């Protein structure tokens, strides 16, 4: 059978850490930490990516959900390769692959070296 994902992309535990943070323990021992705001801002769904590519509109009217501090309502598994995050603002089309989650890590070591660009091979369809 074909080899499975490396330990660096095998999560062993995923949990909320206080009201603002989310952590993932990986098979290689790495401890990833994220703010919900960071994950929400990096939603990989097609509409969020398109919105980010547009020039900033200074007259944009905020949607009611945007006034809330973002937090995940649920995070169902997607196959064996990703999690989908349903947010408290009602948005739920972002599929976060394991590779993408790992690349978004905000731990001090990762922040030093990461440019947090979306990996080319990350599956970002909805």
């Amino acid at each position, binding site marked *: 059978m074909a080899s*499975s994902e490396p330990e660096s992309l095998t999560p062993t535990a995923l949990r909320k850490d206080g009201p603002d943070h989310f952590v993932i323990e990986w098979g290689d021992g790495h401890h990833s930490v994220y703010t919900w705001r960071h994950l929400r801002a990096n939603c990989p769904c097609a509409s969020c990516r398109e919105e980010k590519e547009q020039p900033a509109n200074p007259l944009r009217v905020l949607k009611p959900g945007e006034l809330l501090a973002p937090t995940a309502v649920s995070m169902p*598994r*997607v*196959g*064996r390769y990703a999690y989908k995050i349903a947010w408290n603002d009602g948005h739920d089309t972002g599929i976060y692959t394991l590779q993408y989650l790992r690349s978004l890590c905000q731990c001090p070591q990762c922040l030093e070296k990461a440019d947090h660009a979306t990996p080319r091979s990350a599956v970002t*369809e909805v």
Partner: protein
Amino acid sequence: MQPPGPPSQKFELPNIQYLVAVASGKGGVGKSTVAANLALALVKKGKRVGLMDADIYGPSIPIMLGIGDVDPQTTTFPIERHGLKAMSMGFLLGPDKAAVMRGPMVQKYLLGFLTQVDWGQLDYLLVDMPPGTGDAQLALAQTAPVAGVVVVTTPQDVSLNVARRGVQMFRQVQVPVLGVVENMSFFIGEDGKRYEIFRHGGGRKLAEESDVPFLGEIPIDPRVAECGDQGEPVVHRYPDSDVAKAYLALAETVDQQLRHGTQPKELPEVQL
């Protein structure tokens, strides 16, 4: 049958031991022929087998199994033929209608076939995938407990190139690739000589490059097409032929791999 409302999240199939997809990036390499004959070869090994036709736009399993026009209002699915249970969009459409629908409807039918058809207790449910790396493949990978995928290719580069993308896609979504099988590999003429009509060795090369097992070569035999058109796959009609023996060997390899290999781990649930 109305478009079913299948689960959008990952589900279990407790009555099915191994859910195996038969796929290839490219069309026309003989996926349905391989799926039908592999299914019957597993039946010959004493396994309880189902065959699900996931090619919603171009179902070919009804013809290959010799299941003619059925009335979906009065027929109980799956339909049993040659010792295996089958389900196909072709049973719902009849021979003349086209499935004119977009991806989300394809996903609904596909997952509905998996979860709402009473398959009973099965050792294997083979899924004959459509060509490509799109809606059907993603729907299966995202929601169904796929034990593995058999990638079918023909020997020439044009097929290998697309099959390689198929292997890559399944890897990316963490579906184990059981290996590559090379269909239409060679032809033994009446003079006893071996003719490699579509070149040779591409399947093995793809398997090596992709670091997956090479599952074997299926020879060309004109009776394969004749049997498919007449609704009795070659493994059933000519069980002693070389091509049937190749399918039996393929069934043995797949069965061994699944029974002795490591089953893929599911992701842990998130604690919120």
